[in-house]
């Protein structure tokens, strides 16, 4: 057996992927487009959490057909099946009516639950994101240089979540970087600018990323507006998807300046920025090391290593 260094070969493959992304051989959005094409053929529950779509699917399939198929390649068998259907038809009807009735009741219960969850969301979560269109949404940029320095040399995939208007992605273009953004207008403009931005909610995207798959991550934007539970979930996901030695940067607006800088966004958002000390605490709990805080112009960066 020869002395092949597998890790070296894998590193060279990573380098090639990065170079081809940079050269445009692997155009931004190519993988996202493939995902979208397959998603058209997959059940609704495979992609995201489309509750209404799932309930509709349950509704469609809850009717159990009592009529047995009688086709057969052999005419005699077909006749036999027809006789069987005639003899046992009443029994199948009796059974399937009960199953269909049960399915119908379950679907109605699910619809009721869905409506209750919607009402709960209306009163407990933030306003419809559409109300924030054109208001705020700009992540603090004063500390971009700190982020760029922290991530310099990351060898592997780097995620910026949320990508926003793509400014930070451009600053990190030396890296194998991509973004996630749920605001459709921003995704479109990023795609037109040739940036690799996935149209997805950050937490939904992170659930799909493989363990240890990323070499770096920037959490920005979402950390200003998300509810506390979502922010804690972000740390857990980051700990899972970042490999050993990977870098994380949390870029947020200082709580003290949040309302002043973005009053409308602050009022309509479901959450608010955490204090940097809270991020330091959470990251330490999840095993991140070398945690440092840089504060400037009403914003801060918490940098850490996995």
């Amino acid at each position, binding site marked *: 057996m020869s002395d092949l260094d597998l890790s070296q070969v*894998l590193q060279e493959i990573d380098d090639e992927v990065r170079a081809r992304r940079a050269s445009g051989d692997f155009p931004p959005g190519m993988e996202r487009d493939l995902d979208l094409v*397959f998603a058209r053929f997959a059940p609704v529950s495979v992609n995201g959490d489309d509750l209404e779509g799932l309930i509709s699917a349950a509704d469609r399939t809850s009717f159990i057909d009592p009529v047995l198929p009688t086709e057969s390649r052999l005419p005699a068998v077909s006749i036999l099946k027809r006789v069987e259907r005639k003899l046992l038809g009443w029994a199948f009807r009796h059974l399937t009516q009960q199953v269909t009735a049960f399915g119908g009741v379950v679907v109605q219960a699910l619809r009721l639950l869905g409506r209750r969850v919607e009402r709960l969301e209306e009163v407990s979560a933030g306003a419809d994101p559409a109300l924030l269109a054109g208001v705020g949404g700009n992540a603090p940029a004063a500390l971009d240089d700190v982020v760029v320095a922290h991530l310099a040399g990351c060898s592997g995939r780097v995620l910026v979540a949320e990508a926003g208007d793509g400014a930070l992605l451009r600053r990190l273009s030396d890296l194998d970087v991509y973004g996630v953004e749920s605001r459709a207008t921003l995704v479109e403009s990023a795609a037109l600018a040739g940036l690799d931005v996935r149209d997805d909610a950050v937490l939904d995207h992170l659930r799909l990323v493989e363990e240890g798959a990323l070499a770096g991550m920037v959490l920005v934007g979402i950390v200003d507006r998300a509810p506390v539970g979502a922010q804690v979930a972000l740390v857990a996901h980051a700990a899972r998807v970042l490999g050993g030695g990977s870098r994380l940067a949390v870029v947020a607006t200082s709580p003290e300046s949040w309302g002043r800088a973005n009053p409308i966004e602050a009022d309509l958002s479901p959450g608010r920025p955490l204090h940097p000390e809270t991020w330091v605490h959470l990251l330490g709990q999840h095993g991140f090391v070398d945690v440092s805080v840089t504060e400037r112009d009403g914003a801060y960066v918490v940098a850490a290593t996995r």
Partner: protein
Amino acid sequence: MPRAIHQLVPSFAPRNAIGNHVLQVQDVIRGMGLDSEIYVADAWREVAHLTRPYRELAGGDGTWLLYQASTGSPLAEWLQGRPEPRLLNYHNITPASLFAPWEPHIGVELAAGRRQLAELAAGTELAIAVSSYNEGELRAAGYRDTAVVPILLDTSTFDRAEDPAAVERLQAPGPVWLFVGRLAPNKAQHDLLKALSVYRRVYDPTARLRLVGGSSSHAYATAVKTFVRALQMEDAVEFCGDVSDAELAAHYRAADVFVSTSEHEGFCIPLLEAMHHRLPIVAYGSSAVPETLGSAGLCLRTKEPTRVAAAAHRVITDPAVRAALVAAGTARLADFDLDRNRRRMADALAGAVGA
């Protein structure tokens, strides 16, 4: 004193990895001087004569029961009420979440299998896993005494004569990717198609993929075939279905690389077949794949289509990498030597029952 170790198998099929394993285990137990019969909930007609219905099990003093756990089964519920001391051999149960959106009824069966696995933990004296990955799942399910013995596999059965007609028919002008496994959501053949699409667009438009194996999900198979049409790769992707042993050997011979993007494997025997047929491997390192593969293939941390395509390209076009992987595969295969693993199984069983 132990008198017998009888195996309990939910479904016993011929030419099947678990079926062959069960026969090997029976031989091992009999070699220890103990009685051993195979009791099943279901058996294919051609191997039914090797088995007995589980409800005919008499049991009694000195009888131990070895349950082969691979899916949900009424047999597992029945087993919980049995007085005999119990052993368990775990082959893995696919997480229901991978199947449920596609085939809800299979999802229910798999979920039941996982629940039963946890319920059997309390009264099980020793649980033997076919991989360390599976052992981890056993421990998470509450098993305290566990061991690892790889699946008992006679790799000499991989030495099949190739079907000459198939070898001729499978000649292709461009590089050929091969994957062997049933069309199933956990095998994630759709991710292979994404990678092939990238490969054909960037590296070689003549590349093709052969998917060998039947289907475990009509809904998933339909989606995958529709996906092929949407990608306009009808001429590049072959759904070969179940094939004979001789045809399978021809497929391995005709391919340039074995590529797997499988999401969940408890062991993954086709990796060993590929090693045996000197076919280099590129595989996404999910579940038990890194353990089975060892250093005998390119094990990818992610299965982004670009990365899978780049890795396949490297293996296909770099003779040094290719030769090294083939050599490493041959060496790795020796770790699954049947005699050695039979001894390990005998030791594990003897230690548990005190034989």
